[in-house]
């Protein structure tokens, strides 16, 4: 059975895809059935994924050499593209995590979406989304990965814009797609150059060839390719400066936000960079770029998150920030730490998003945390699981986030880049602060009279509990004392780090400090007077942060003024120059020359006779003064 799962891992993405097809063509009129098909498909897929993961993690040879099986997809001349499955511990971990989290989110969605007119369609999209992500994870070929990558983008488009009647949803979906498209442009260029330089896109072959790349290309070209490839993840994983779509993506139904932010989509970028480590590893400057981008994004997003008011928006920026962490880990060369954080983050972020969904469900989509309060009393399961999530993300041991974050800090520290390390540390503090600010504001404190919260049904709380469990213990697979994780998921050689107690204690202290600060400002202080005073005192900084550093406005301006302006310019050029001057010009010339020559038609016989005789004269002159043979030649155009 395990062998079967190992060698037929294509079933993992196929089953949800099948669910998509079944729902679209068969069960669309019966919502309950559609939900069942979708959840069933994902659960079966989860079952196979678990088996495959079990198979991989019980046989250490897969950590050295991945299990690859592929078939030719198409070929055009020298361009030969395969599709296939590449199973190694990294992808095995991913499919397990993705199918597990997705299954839970699907179950949650059966409760959350109840009664929605688009219930069936929603579940078909979800299934397709999961399927695309799994395909991406298992891809053995970069182009195949790109295909899945784009399909993930499509599904996110469909799901973010699921409430089609809402203009904000429509715009957010468009923004997500177009932003990712910009990034994909870079990625596509990167893939193209890889194909052209190395003549293959199969990951294993690429890895081999890049190992001794000097046979094929220069360092400059390698840097270029690495940077181009990295542009894709910048977009997909919401790194600065293309992070703008991610916070808006919460316009979709909450399960979608959870799916996008936790298990699928955004981690695709991190995963891709991880997959392409063999490329980045050869190019130190690209690695540096990855690390700097990651660290900056982490800090930047955290600084926005501390002033946001909408619950999902805070979570969204925290996602951006955490993704920055993962990138930072990759940039300092630790695939292990990055994947570890990806793993733990998936659980606690899914948990928090679903918790937020539960809150919104209860409060009828009232999203402002300032208008909530004391929810934990009426919604104990949601509240306590959410607290576990907050503990995890704040880096409090023994919760999952602590271990992975610690690993990243350690990796940054070991790398010797102390600026990046400091940035990461500050981010850790801020993360604890804003998450607990959210928690205190929404769940603790006084209840608001106008709210009538109630606990959500079982199919929404069950996933919360399961996720809370994983958010609690998920990090134990990679403690510094028992580095199981690093034994399996690594780049180059197994990753062993000596526990650094200073950093460990330091990060706990930072997390506690953040929580304490949030406590004093938002819970102990009933009137929140000091928080308001601080906001007033640093009005400029507050506004900057609250308005997300005006990046959206800049893009909007760019899009509306520059792109649309150029479009209008081109169009006017087309109408007035190409069409107006060139095309209609030729037409007008024809017409005008007709008009002009018309005047020659005077209607007076004697005019005609005059011209006629002029012609006769000319002809006579030609005939009189040239040799007869030449004259004949002239008149017949050279024909013999």
């Amino acid at each position: 059975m395990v062998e079967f799962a190992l060698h037929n891992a294509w079933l993992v993405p196929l089953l949800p895809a099948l669910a998509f097809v079944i729902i679209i063509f068969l069960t669309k009129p019966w919502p309950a059935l559609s939900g069942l098909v979708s959840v069933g498909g994902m659960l079966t897929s989860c079952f196979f994924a678990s088996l495959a993961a079990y198979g991989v993690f019980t046989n250490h040879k897969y950590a050295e050499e991945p299990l690859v099986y592929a078939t030719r997809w198409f070929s055009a001349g020298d361009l030969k593209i395969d599709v296939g499955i590449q199973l190694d511990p990294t992808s095995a971990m991913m499919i397990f995590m993705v199918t597990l989290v997705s299954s839970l989110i699907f179950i949650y969605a059966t409760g959350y979406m109840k009664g929605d007119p688009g219930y069936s369609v929603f579940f078909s999209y979800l299934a397709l989304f999961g399927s695309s992500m799994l395909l991406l994870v298992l891809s053995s070929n970069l182009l195949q990965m790109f295909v899945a990558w784009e399909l993930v983008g499509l599904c996110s488009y469909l799901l973010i814009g699921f409430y089609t009647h809402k203009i904000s949803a429509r715009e957010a979906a468009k923004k997500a797609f177009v932003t990712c498209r910009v990034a994909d442009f870079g990625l596509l260029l990167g893939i193209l150059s890889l194909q052209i330089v190395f003549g293959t896109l199969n990951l294993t072959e690429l890895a081999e060839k890049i190992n001794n790349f000097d046979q094929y290309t220069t360092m400059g070209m390698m840097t270029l390719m690495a940077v181009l490839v990295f542009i894709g993840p910048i977009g997909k994983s919401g790194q600065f400066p293309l992070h703008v779509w991610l916070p808006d993506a919460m316009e979709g139904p909450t399960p979608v936000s959870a799916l996008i932010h936790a298990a699928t989509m955004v981690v695709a970028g991190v995963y891709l960079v991880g997959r392409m480590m063999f490329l980045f590893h050869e190019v130190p400057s690209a690695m540096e770029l990855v690390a700097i981008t990651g660290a900056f994004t982490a800090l930047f997003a955290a600084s926005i998150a501390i002033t946001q008011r909408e619950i999902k928006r805070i979570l969204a920026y925290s996602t951006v920030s955490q993704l920055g962490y993962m990138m930072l880990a990759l940039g300092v060369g630790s695939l292990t730490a990055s994947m570890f954080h990806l793993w733990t983050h998936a659980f606690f972020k899914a948990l928090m998003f679903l918790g937020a969904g539960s809150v919104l469900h209860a409060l009828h989509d009232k999203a402002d945390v300032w208008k909530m309060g004391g929810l934990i009393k009426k919604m104990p399961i949601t509240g306590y699981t959410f607290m576990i999530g907050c503990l995890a993300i704040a880096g409090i041991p023994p919760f999952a986030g602590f271990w992975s974050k610690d690993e990243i800090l350690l990796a940054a520290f070991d790398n010797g880049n102390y600026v990046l390390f400091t940035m990461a540390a500050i981010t850790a503090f801020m993360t604890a602060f804003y998450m607990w600010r959210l928690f205190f504001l929404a769940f603790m404190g006084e209840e608001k009279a106008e709210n009538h919260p109630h606990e959500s049904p079982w199919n929404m709380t069950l996933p919360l509990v399961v996720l809370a469990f994983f958010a609690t213990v998920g990090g134990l697979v990679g403690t510094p004392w028992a580095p199981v994780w690093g034994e399996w998921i690594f780049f180059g050689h197994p990753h062993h780090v000596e526990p650094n107690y200073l950093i460990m204690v330091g990060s706990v202290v930072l997390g506690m400090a953040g929580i304490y600060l949030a406590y004093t400002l938002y819970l102990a202080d009933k009137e929140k007077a000091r928080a308001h005073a601080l906001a007033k005192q640093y009005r400029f900084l507050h506004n900057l942060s609250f308005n997300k550093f005006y990046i959206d406005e800049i893009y909007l301006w760019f899009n509306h003024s520059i792109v649309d302006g150029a479009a209008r310019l081109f169009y006017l050029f087309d109408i007035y120059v190409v069409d107006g001057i060139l095309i209609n010009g030729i037409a007008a010339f024809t017409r005008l020359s007709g008009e002009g020559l018309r005047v020659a038609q005077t209607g007076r016989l004697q005019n005609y006779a005059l011209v006629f005789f002029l012609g006769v004269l000319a002809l006579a002159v030609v005939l009189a003064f040239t040799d007869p043979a030449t004259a004949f030649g002239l008149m017949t155009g050279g024909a013999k």
Partner: protein
Amino acid sequence: MDGFPFLTAILLAPVAAALIMVFIPRDEGKLIKCIAAIGTFVSLALSLYVYFSYDQSVGGLQFVERIPWIRDLGVSWFMAVDGISLPMLLLTNLIGFAAVFASWNVNNRPREFFILFMLLVTGVMGTFIAHDLFIFLLFYEVVVIPIYIMVIIWGSSKRVTKEYAGMKLTIYLLIGSAFLLVGVIAMFMKSVGIMGHPDMSFTALAEAGKQLSAFDQKWLFGLMLFGFGSLISMWPFHSWSPDGYAGAPTAVSMIHAGVLKKIGGYGLIKIALVFMPLGAQFWAPVMAVLGVAGVTYAAFGALAQKDLKYIVGYSSVSHMGYVMLAIGSFNLIGINGAVANMFGHGVMAALFFSTIGFIYEKTHTRWIPDMGGLARQTPRLAVAFMLAAMASLGLPGLVTFIPEFTIFVGAFEVYGGLAVIGIAGIILTALYVLRAGANTLFGPPRDEYNHLEDIHGPEMVPLVVLGTVLVVGGLMPSLLFDMINSGAKDIMAHVADVLKIGGVL
């Protein structure tokens, strides 16, 4: 092959349908449409059979029918298919069949409409399977007249009147064919000089082309480039395309954007490139530059549009820019991509135009600001629209992605930075397509469209047929690419052959 003249049968099925229609009373609209559907379906079925029974391992010309016709000019009824003409033939029939159903609601003089339409389809098919230059031109001219009449009578006037649109379309086509004719006649005269006897068949002319001097090849290719270029709406000879499509009735837009345009690319590859490889080599950078210019320029142009048909019109110019870029890259991968992209874009454009046609039929507007929220009222139409839109922006998993990727590989290898500008077009494409889709389909539904009926019955056929091709072709690109590759590699082998000789000379 086995005696039955499949290609002639494919060609004559619509003609037979048209002949039957002549004898049907004019008010029997349903019957006429059914006959049109049957006629195109027979062609479609036969061409599917031919497509799948073509032996790719052998390659070359198959299903050959050759009957001498005008001996003094070396003209013969030479019908055959290879890996390049087959996808185009199939495309024509797919779109022809779908277009009949997209015109199911034509009630103004249906008999004349469908007779002309059958002739149009026949003409287009003929250009793709004729392997005699004279017959090729003959079929090409057959195409022009029905289009003109159909635009003038059944078209619609928006920014420009339908008369203007029809005139523009026709004159462009004729100018293109004028360039072409000069080139063809010159080529023919030269070939007579080389071979010593007249022969208009592609095979003979390709052989004769080997001995053409480099200078002759250059100017002949130049003529054909501008002839075929204005057909494929090569920048800056593109401006007929948006206006023409906007004015034309749905079926004509479908056929025109879907396949007729492709005659330009097909001719460039199968005629100009094969006959004048040295000329092609000389002109390749020009084609690439014009291609990239077309991609970017038309993408920006599309971004500024508010009329759905104009958007698709400009977008098709933009996509044809990719084809030009691919031919300009002058390598096997590029040629593969060019042909495949023509196929993919054909299916996509046809689906797009049929969808827009239905939207227009139902809402009586194509003006985007007047629309919104149609996804709620007409979900199937929205599916068709989104499918076409996604294909237009080259979503992987649909038939348009792999060809574009192939083109990028082919072009990037040769042109580097220039290709990057072209590839950047995918961002703009996403922008305008999504904007159009979002503003038409999504957002708050409008009350005035609450009564709209979604597409149903025969109206579903374009969506089903073309949508299936979009998805199947996207998931199994080898179905398309193996075929094209079998044709393209012969062509490029021939080209390489000639270039070698040319190098020696």
